[in-house]
């Protein structure tokens, strides 16, 4: 089945710095989605991006389907960006999302 790996496992930034989060998946994915989870909080969908580049606010996701990788760029980080970022990819049959273990981001003031 699909396997998803994320890096780095954790990241500490100073407020205002940019972050680059990586996601690699083992097989063709027809769906790729990035989520944010605050400590003890719910999963919030950030971007659905199975291919190409998508922007929303300070977030940019680039997915290269053939190379089975996706990245999430956070520009001008804020303390409120602190939390866990999860990447999820489906198999080529779709519908079932497999999650990575996440990148824990801490943004210091």
């Amino acid at each position, binding site marked *: 089945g699909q396997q998803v790996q994320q890096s780095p496992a954790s990241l500490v930034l100073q407020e205002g710095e940019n972050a680059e989060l990586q996601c690699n998946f083992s097989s063709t994915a*027809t*769906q790729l*989605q990035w*989520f944010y989870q605050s400590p003890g909080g*719910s*999963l*919030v*969908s950030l971007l*659905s991006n*199975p291919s190409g580049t998508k922007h929303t606010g300070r977030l940019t996701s680039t997915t290269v389907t053939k190379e089975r990788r996706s990245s999430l760029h956070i520009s001008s980080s804020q303390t409120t960006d602190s939390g866990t970022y*999860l990447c*999820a990819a*489906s198999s080529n049959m*779709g*519908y*079932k*999302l*497999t*999650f990575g*273990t*996440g990148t824990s981001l801490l943004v210091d003031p």
Partner: protein
Amino acid sequence: NAGVIQTPRHKVTGKGQEATLWCEPISGHSAVFWYRQTIVQGLEFLTYFRNQAPIDDSGMPKERFSAQMPNQSHSTLKIQSTQPQDSAVYLCASSLGGNTEVFFGKGTRLTVV
């Protein structure tokens, strides 16, 4: 749009008791998923419904777990004879189907004592 609604938010059961978790998907969404999240295992897929029909229950522990979707506005996850290892956050999600964006509820935190 209230999003995916899950009730209760927290549930404590004694070992051996039954627990029923409820989910109301986003109106108009035909795909409904259940996942489980623990610190050790992370997020695990449990089961999937499409247009109320069970499509994939490959992640469900077979003996004590069951899920149903009696109508398009709600799904239930039932755990019989709960065990301490069932303690987790159970997440319901829905989407329009296909490869569309999936939206999660806030989850039900189940604690088995």
